[in-house]
């Protein structure tokens, strides 16, 4: 095994991250060298954290070089741990305290209009993601992380779940495709993740495996924190099996990933989206049949807000409850356009008022003007009002 390992990122354009180079030695004690733009302010803190962590891993002789561009403690700690674990076969984890704000569970049916994807190995983006108020923040371990960086990304994501305030957004992680994804669960489940996205899901069996793995981890950890699942359907087979997937335990929402789906289909992805109309309708239908939330794919042109708006309106008209986003500026457009319109709210209020009046009078039949109103219509109206007045904080 090599005696030198590096982890993390450092370079001209990289901020809030660091690169550590760890060299294990036979003698000479611990030497920590720091090259940091915040050295005047945090130099002593950084060095003492690094020393404490090496001590925690029982390393007595080593040289550690830290090249830092303003990384916070949880990032530095993750990078050092990643380097250590490349050189030593150790199971223990160097954990910083979980912040108070990250101890909450989330409700099964909370709003999931927007979920913001963040590359799991880029700490800078996570720090301020929550202030843009997405309903959920996804720390991604799958497509946005290079294969060689998967291990260090998982450690960083674990630390992010414990240390970064998401300001009320649901804490989500997209694991890798199974079976690798099951390994990822070991890293994140004990650390208060609220929801796991299971990519390229094609069968309920895969979801069952995820559930079993989570149960096993939680048994070991005596932690019964509720973890919801959102499978992502990204293939023709997945679309066909979507109802049984949606009906599996702990699944609260089901998303569609159109890049992979259209590739699987052998069709080009278009802005109009005719090629995925069937799949999206099928997904909505399956999700509704299983009483869970149908969630649309991402809109990838971050500069085209008008296109995004049309996309959202289209999603809403197909029956979706939310969609993914890849840039914080997309969040507001998504929320605004999934929200009920003024007209929808007005109409819903009339229906609900009529219903309540009928209830008060003890009438069995609800009518508005000359029209009779069926129970499902009332229910939808109630849902619309709920959505219009929704306060996200649970």
């Amino acid at each position, binding site marked *: 095994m090599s005696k030198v390992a590096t982890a993390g990122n450092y370079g001209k354009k990289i901020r809030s991250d660091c690169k550590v180079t760890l060299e294990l030695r036979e003698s000479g004690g611990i030497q920590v060298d720091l090259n940091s733009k915040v050295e005047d302010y945090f130099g002593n803190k950084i060095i003492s954290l690094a020393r404490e962590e090496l001590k925690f891993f029982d390393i007595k002789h080593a040289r550690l070089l830290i090249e830092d561009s303003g*990384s916070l403690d949880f990032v530095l700690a993750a990078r050092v741990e990643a380097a250590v674990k490349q050189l030593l076969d150790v199971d223990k984890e160097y954990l910083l305290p979980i912040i108070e704000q990250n101890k909450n569970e989330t409700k099964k049916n909370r709003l999931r209009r927007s979920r913001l994807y963040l590359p799991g190995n880029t700490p800078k983006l996570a720090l*301020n993601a929550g202030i843009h108020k997405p309903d959920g923040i996804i720390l991604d371990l799958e497509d946005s992380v290079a294969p060689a960086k998967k291990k260090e990304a998982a450690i960083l994501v674990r630390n992010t779940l414990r240390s970064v305030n998401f300001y009320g957004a649901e804490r989500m992680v997209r694991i890798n495709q199974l079976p690798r994804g099951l390994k990822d669960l070991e890293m994140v489940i004990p650390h208060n993740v609220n929801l796991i996205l299971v990519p390229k899901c094609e069968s309920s069996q895969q979801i069952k495996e995820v559930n079993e793995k989570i149960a096993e981890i939680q048994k070991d950890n005596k932690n019964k924190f509720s973890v919801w699942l959102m499978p992502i359907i990204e293939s023709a087979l997945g679309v066909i099996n979507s109802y049984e997937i949606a009906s599996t335990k702990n699944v609260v929402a089901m998303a569609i990933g159109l890049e992979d789906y259209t590739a699987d289909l052998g069709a080009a992805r278009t802005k109009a989206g005719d090629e995925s109309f069937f799949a999206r309708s099928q997904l909505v239908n399956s999700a509704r049949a299983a009483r869970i939330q149908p969630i649309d794919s991402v809109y990838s042109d971050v500069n085209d807000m008008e296109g995004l708006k049309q996309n959202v309106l289209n999603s809403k008209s197909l029956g979706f409850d939310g969609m993914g986003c890849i840039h914080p*500026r997309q969040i507001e457009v998504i929320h605004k356009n999934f929200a009920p319109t003024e007209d929808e709210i007005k109409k819903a209020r009339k229906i609900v008022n009529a219903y309540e009046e009928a209830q008060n009078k003890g009438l069995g039949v609800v009518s508005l003007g000359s029209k009779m109103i069926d129970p499902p219509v009332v229910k939808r109206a109630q849902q619309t009002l709920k959505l219009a007045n929704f306060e996200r904080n649970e």
Partner: protein
Amino acid sequence: MKKADKFVKNAAGRTVPTLVNGEKVVPFKGVNGYKPKHRGAAPRVPTCIDYPKDGNKLVKTLKDALQKSGLKDGMTISTHHHYRNGDYIANLVFDIAAELGVKDLRWVPSAAFPCHAPIIKHLDSGVVHHIEGSLNGPLGDYCSHGKMKGLGYLRSHGGRYRAIADGEMHIDIAVMCASASDMMGNANGVNGKHPFGPMAFTKADVKYADRTIVVTDTLVDFPCYPWEIMGNDVDFVVVLDEVGDPEQIVSGTTRITKSPDRLLIAENCAKFIDAAGILKDGMNFQAGAGGTSLAFVHFVKKMMQEKGIKARSMVGGSTKFLVDMLEEGLTDYIFDGQTFGLEAISSLRDNPNHIPIGIFDIYDFHAKGNLAQMMDVIVLGSTEVDVKFNANCVTHSDGRMLHGIGGFQNCLLAKCTMIAVPSFRDRIPVIKDEVTTLVAPGELVDVIVTERGIAINPQRKDLIEATQDSGLPIKDIKELKAEVDEICGIPEKPKLSDEPVAVVEWVDGTILDMIRKVED
């Protein structure tokens, strides 16, 4: 002669010298606490018969012009910064001075840029004794390390005009580049090969300097009109192949930021002025260049369109973005002291509602009125703020010099001054217990807007009341600071020496703070 001597504590509690480069200066007396009663500078009285009857003041070279202007040891030389980082003239002037063996010059640019790094060798050799004007980049570093023989002197744009007009800073020779001039020295910045815009920063120099040299790359037939510089204020005209590179004017200032966090800050600024009732038909506001400021204007523009209102005036640095708003009828006027980009220059030249203004008109504290104080809202950036709402825009938190003051202090006179800053940069909190260098006294800063919340100065009860039900993330400044410290950790205090390297002047001419030498 000591650079600085006789230190006292001023009204802001800062230790400052009362002797700077051998001259007596007044310590800061508090905001509006100092009103001098003396008469101002009296310019040299020339006689027209001493100048060529045909108006032809052309001389062959800049060296000739400087020699004919009587360039000698100890003189004060001024230049302007309308070409910003593309200015060729200042370097040329001091190269010539070095060639002529002249020493101990004082350079008083309206601003210096990284392109002026070659002047360091003239500071080393003693051709230039010291610089009074904004210091950043390599020159800021040089001064921060205490290498300059004299004390640096930072003035706001308005403060520079004031110092010249009040008789505190006498200019011997003003070397003013112009994009077009005639043989008499009538000159402007909108015609010629390389136009740069209005000439706001030349007005005091031309009026009060003993000698004024106009340098241009485009000689036009008499009369050169518009004549922002009047030929009858000019001693000599020099034509060179090149005077500046307009490409360097725009760098990084004309595009809206793409950073989602900075966009959020800008959007919060816009939502705040809407909630506070400031955003209304007929408003006047400053709309500067730079990523966050432009983003602020972008959001204000959208709100104006939605409400169907327009501004009465906007104050530039103007960009294509402001010009579009003028042309779309969203503002009646642009007042402009500096343009960025060709669209803005053409608009200034061709649209009578795009009005060039001098620094005296907009910023001078000793003017009989002041455009800045008529502004309904101005949004500024800063390197640091503190829990007393003081702000710093000239040094890093470690005391290294970073920017000039520019119009920053002058803008504080607006009806609502907002400082838009991220709450931390690279782990360094922006909200401090006390700013490293005091540039904006807290009582003049009304609102601090960050991506994590908006803090309103407790003195502005009107703004607090107006926005309390707005749903905006309004927080106590201390609460905001605690939130950021929680994320970043509390930084150690950087070590600063006691040795002063520069002073920061307040708009009234008093000394607000002192910048200390940085130890490496």
